């Protein structure tokens, strides 16, 4: 037992066979929690994020800005999975690991000799997480999917509509939402293993993760009480509940009013005390009925005013008002700055990188950013030597026979 701070998860080694966003950000979360994450990569099958540059003329595989954010804390080994001995190297690594995460199409890991049943022979209590668009079983399991397509299939994208009345076309934030569910699955399995001594196979389907975030809409449908989707920022019962224009380009503040006290405070601030005493708006159903009229009165006040000043003014009167923050706003936000959300880390090729800290504050065992994203194959030799006891002669043979590079 220890009373000092240490890794949240204790010694936990994760083999990360993933690429793009969902998988790497799942293991990113686990790395924040102190797991040792080892990326299994190869130059002929690079994570495409290693090559998505923002600076023209870049050629290095170590300069992808998103790669360098999504792979913080990780180690990198180059192993050629197409070589039979490469797969054997991974099985031997699995034998000294706790978790394997992949986001190949279902069946690929099996064909590589790295399926759950094959890895279980190497490590009986291994935990394997397979992340995919629609899951590892079922008639459409082999589908190709990206965030907007699996979000559409899930049903979530039509639960409410955009201001122009269209379903949602999701992007990367949806991927990282699935990453979170994957990380939670691994934590649940690690915890269960502590009790039972058993490993498990975890199948997390992106579309199912998203559908689980609209549970009430599915139940409403089952109840026959399903309502047509709300449009934009509105709510089925609460009003005012919208975005209002502020001074500046594409600047908006969100305001939602639930109680009569909040309503009266809002009316006072926007200089419309006549509306506070207007019996038509005295309760929520009334305000909902006249929401167009109310929205216009609020917008007349907010237009031309600064969104942050409005937030302060309204919050001081206990009215829920928060700007629609852009990435730039978040980077410049005094609250986030005071909470230490923005960090820097030195990368051997990319130099000083600014990044967001892990999204939780633990009082005793902090989540960490301990090292930059790894260079391709930076830790191949070290892991083979230290973990698998491969000597330098054997290492040279593995290299010359293209097992590693």
């Amino acid at each position, binding site marked *: 037992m220890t009373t000092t701070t240490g890794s949240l998860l204790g010694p936990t080694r994760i083999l990360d066979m993933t690429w793009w966003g969902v998988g790497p950000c799942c293991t990113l979360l686990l790395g924040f929690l102190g797991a040792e994450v080892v990326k299994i990569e190869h130059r002929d099958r690079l994570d495409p994020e290693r090559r998505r540059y923002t600076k023209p003329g870049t050629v290095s595989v170590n300069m992808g800005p998103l790669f360098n954010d999504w792979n913080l804390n990780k180690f990198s080994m180059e192993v050629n999975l197409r070589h039979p001995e490469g797969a054997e190297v991974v099985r031997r690594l699995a034998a000294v690991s706790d978790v394997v995460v992949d986001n190949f199409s279902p069946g690929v890991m099996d064909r590589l000799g790295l399926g759950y049943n094959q890895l279980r022979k190497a490590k009986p209590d291994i935990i394997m997480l397979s992340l995919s668009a629609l899951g590892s079983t*079922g008639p459409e399991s082999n589908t190709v999917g990206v965030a907007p397509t699996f979000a559409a299939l899930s049903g979530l994208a039509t639960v409410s*509509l955009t201001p122009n009345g269209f379903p949602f076309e999701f992007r990367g934030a949806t991927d990282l939402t699935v990453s979170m569910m994957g990380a939670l699955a691994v934590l649940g399995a690690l915890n269960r293993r502590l009790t039972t001594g058993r490993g498990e196979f975890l199948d*997390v389907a992106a579309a199912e993760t998203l559908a*689980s975030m609209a549970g*009430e809409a599915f139940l409403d449908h089952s109840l026959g009480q399903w309502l047509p989707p709300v449009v934009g920022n509105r709510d*089925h019962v609460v009003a005012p509940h919208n975005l209002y224009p502020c001074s500046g380009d594409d600047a908006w503040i969100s305001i939602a009013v639930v109680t009569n006290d909040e309503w009266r405070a809002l009316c006072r601030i926007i200089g419309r005390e006549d509306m506070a005493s207007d019996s038509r708006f005295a309760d929520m159903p009334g305000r909902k009925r006249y929401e167009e009229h109310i929205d216009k009165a609020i917008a007349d006040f907010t237009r031309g005013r600064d969104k942050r000043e409005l937030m302060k003014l309204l919050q001081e009167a206990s009215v829920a008002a928060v700007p629609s923050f852009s990435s730039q706003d978040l980077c410049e936000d005094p609250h986030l700055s005071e909470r230490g959300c923005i960090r820097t880390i030195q990368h051997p090729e990319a130099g000083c990188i600014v*990044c967001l800290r892990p*999204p939780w504050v633990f009082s005793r065992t902090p989540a960490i950013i301990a090292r930059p994203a790894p260079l391709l194959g930076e830790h191949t030799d070290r892991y083979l030597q230290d973990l698998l006891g491969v000597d330098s002669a054997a290492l040279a043979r593995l290299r010359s026979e293209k097992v590693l590079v």
Partner: protein
Amino acid sequence: MSTQTVGGTEHPIALEIADFVAGPFCGKLLSGLGFTVVKVQPPSHVAGGRHEKPQELPRYPEPPSVGLYLNIGKLSVTLDIEKSEGVRIFADLARRASVIVEDRPPGYMADLGLSYPELAQANPRLVVLSLTPFGQTGPYSKYKSYYLNTYHSGGDGFLQGDSTPTKGPGYMGEYQAGVSAAIAAMAAYYNARLTGQGQHVDVSKQEALMFTNRALVSSYMNSGMLETRKTRSFPYGGRFRCKDGDVIIVAQENAQWAGLTEVIGHPELAKDERFKDFASRSANSKVIRQMVEAWANTVTCDEAYRQTQAKRIPIGIFHDVGKAMAWPHFLERGFFQPIVNAGDKSLIGPTWPIQSSEVPRWPGPGRVATPGEHNDKIYGEWLDYNVNDLARLAQAGVI
């Protein structure tokens, strides 16, 4: 006792003092991972109960299906923790719990004498997770934020929608925050099992949502690139109208584009200089959109899906909830099934989003406890209050 035995298995106990979506979804996920979750609700929330001191935050007028979905299988006690005897009982419960998930405004629990250090003194293994819009510290920590505001606080709202920034569908941001909180709770609980020591975890919903767009935040910080709704739109793919609904097609890579030209019956376009790479296709997006639209209009969503997937091009059908629930793929996986009994009906909904080889997909339809339904069981059996005590506490409005 920090676990409860059900059917021969030990279940750690999680107390949930949380309303609306984020905290209860966190609790729901914990129950899926083996916790016995006890919802602690103020008696004033009970119909006919006395409403002495209104909560600092009003309850959001949520549709009943929210509680139906999020509280399946949880135990429920009523307790007024604003009364001194309620505080004592809560501290007693906390001694037996492994995790507490609370979403009250920062300082609220401490003002009642239920701060983390006070609770940890009696139960050093306890994990207390506080889930609030802006976290426990910082200038916005006491700011009020409903689900609309919270979604926009995290940066994704600015990127969704068209004419104006838009919150995600339904209560999406609250759900996302709930998953992030569950990760933190499970990690801290796992650590407590390893070390014998719990801790307090501060989870800000804003930061949970920012995580999902961390790439964009870092792009701005590192290279000054600011993503907006315009820069995020698909230049030539996106949504298309079929005979019976809408699909979304993403064919950005050259091979996908070549495949798409065959799907839409214009294979000659694959060699057309105007469309030779992503940049030129984006520049000529109008022409492409017209041709894809012309094809889409002649097929059903399902035909479009099959023809396009056959070329390994990402396509999705915009399912409404009814169509998603009836999609054979989800049904065959057992994802949608009767999850909860309400009245004389078994309602179909999403099962666990995590499918594990060690856990059944769903234990069969459960039910949602009425507030205080487990007062006798929990106060009587766990805390040894007798019938007279319980009657007196009820009389005093404590439970």
